[in-house]
């Protein structure tokens, strides 16, 4: 059995390892755009912040590919897939690379923005270690930074730069940051903490263009004003990297549609991680959950299935844990469903200790949770959402500070 894996991110390497455990001999070719060793992508923002040194990023050793008997093809992107001939095409391989089982774990690329002057120096996306490396090289000469976007990437870039002592202005579309991850109350708590630590946040403004001589010196904003800055970070979310996938053959919505075995509509072709769109347990519909732990489990599952061991996943779940300054935030599932959905919402806020909790219940099942501070046992709530286990206690009991594992045994 010949295996080809597109993507050397965490989904790709976990798939390769799962295949190797089942099939010690089958040739595995791993195509990756990034030439760096397999590394921990979520940690790049911690490198920017200065909390973790660059050399801690790799999660596998230099002899990784050799030890696992993987043929790495790095620094190149796949250009097309021939579904009938079962080959992937890419520069440098005129005949293509044949496969019996293919995994598309190509991940996602930053969502591009439309603005003038994007070719100036000092304008960055923040997705790869190479981009963070370049940001760090520029950092000593940066006094004022502009961050576009209030999602996870924009937020982490802004936080990292504030921690580095840079004056940061962040432009966000909604009233509060992380609007895809948290609800308004938690979002406003986060915003207040960031503003208190010196971040300048502007709501409802976008950047229309950048100017400077070679290097960026400022930005023009949609309200007509100008803003001086010597660094710009664009964090407007990510889109699955799927330009090479034949849409007439493989079903795609936002990501590649997969079943519980991570298989696409074409037998033998699988997808996992940020590129895949899978059933979301909380939302009860298909959804792209582009997060690290999903990529890990989806990659492993895809690998096991590719090697002939049928393993099914129940679904994916959006979840995140973020620590900023002295504040901890954990979220999972559907945290802000529209009122029309008829879910029960339980909240508890303690302004003095800065603790906040919100639970979203669908009948006797938990579908969403937001926690600000006291997150140590948050995994219990996340597990309850993942398992969709019927609760034998009220939402009020579940949200109380005394809640612990023992109560689930009652």
């Amino acid at each position, binding site marked *: 059995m010949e295996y080809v894996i597109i993507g050397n991110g965490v989904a790709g390497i976990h798939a390769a390892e799962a295949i190797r455990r089942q099939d010690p001999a089958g040739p595995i070719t791993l195509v990756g755009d990034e030439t760096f060793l397999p590394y921990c992508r979520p940690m790049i923002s911690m490198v920017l912040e200065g909390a*973790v040194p660059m050399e*801690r990023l790799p999660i596998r050793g230099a002899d990784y590919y050799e030890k696992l008997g993987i043929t790495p093809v790095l620094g190149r992107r796949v250009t097309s897939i021939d579904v009938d001939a079962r080959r992937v095409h890419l520069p440098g391989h005129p005949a293509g690379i044949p496969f019996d089982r293919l995994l598309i774990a190509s991940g996602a690329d930053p969502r591009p923005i439309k603005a003038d002057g994007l070719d100036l120096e000092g304008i960055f996306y923040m997705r790869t270690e190479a981009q963070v490396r370049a940001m760090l090289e520029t950092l000593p000469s940066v006094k004022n930074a502009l961050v576009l976007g209030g999602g996870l990437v924009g937020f982490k870039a802004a936080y990292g730069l504030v921690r580095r002592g840079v004056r940061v202005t962040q432009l966000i579309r909604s009233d509060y940051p992380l609007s895809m991850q948290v609800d308004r109350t938690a979002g406003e708590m986060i915003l207040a903490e960031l503003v208190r630590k010196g971040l300048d946040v502007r709501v409802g403004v976008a950047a229309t263009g950048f100017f400077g001589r070679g290097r960026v010196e400022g930005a023009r904003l949609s309200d007509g004003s100008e803003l001086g800055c010597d660094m710009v970070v664009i964090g407007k979310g990510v889109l699955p990297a799927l330009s090479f996938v034949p849409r007439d053959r493989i079903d795609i919505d936002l990501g590649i549609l997969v079943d519980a075995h991570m298989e696409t509509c074409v037998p033998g072709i699988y997808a996992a991680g940020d590129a895949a769109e899978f059933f979301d347990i909380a939302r009860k519909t298909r959804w792209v959950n582009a997060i690290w732990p999903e990529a*890990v489990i989806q990659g492993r599952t895809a690998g096991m299935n590719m090697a002939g061991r049928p393993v099914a996943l129940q679904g994916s779940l959006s979840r995140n844990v973020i620590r900023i300054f002295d504040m901890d935030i954990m979220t999972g599932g559907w945290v802000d469903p529209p009122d029309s959905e008829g879910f029960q919402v339980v909240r508890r806020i303690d302004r003095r200790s800065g603790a906040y909790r919100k639970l979203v219940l669908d009948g006797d099942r938990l579908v969403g949770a937001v926690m600000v501070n006291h997150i*140590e046992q948050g995994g219990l709530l996340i597990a309850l959402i993942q398992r969709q286990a019927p609760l034998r206690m009220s939402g009020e009991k579940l949200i109380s500070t005394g809640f612990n*594992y*023992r109560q689930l045994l009652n």
Partner: protein
Amino acid sequence: MKQVVVHPERCVGCMQCMIACATAHSKTQTLFTAVQEDPLPKPRVHVGAGLYGEGFPNRCRHCDPAPCMLACLPGAISRDPDTRTVVIDPDTCINCASCAMACPFGVIRYHEDASAPAGKTVAVKCDNCLDRQRRGQVPACVEACKSGALTFESTGDAQRRKTCEVAKTVSRDAGFEQLAPGFSMLNTVKRTQIEMAHR
């Protein structure tokens, strides 16, 4: 291979395992001096109260595969090959709390610890008292438990014993036999008290 086995029906919630655990993971290993240490030693077993005041010593199950190990960003969580114990390396841990989100039992805490570099907050959880085991001692929580809620034995032995206990209760002439008679009476009393208080 011996493991710590929890028998929830026998826990009275005395929390002596917590004190013993914190002491066993302190610098000085003696309660008298441990309480004066900085950072103050903290337990890795967490006795929680049920809805009716029943106790339960919640500790790491050393799952296999372990969700925390798969979720750990810097690769600080690994498995000790000899004892199958899941351990966190405090030097590699970056305190990102990804393991808190992954642990379905809520047994990981974040604080400074005698085992970590001074001043560094790290993820801390049960390590099966590997240091004590190497010295031929049983885990501290088991040594402290007076009610038999925590035992150190092979899971095979524990299962066999439990199977026999359950079998006794279902044989035709046995009548109804409590698995842990004194404890279930205690829990019934606690439950009744709480229900009466609510009325």
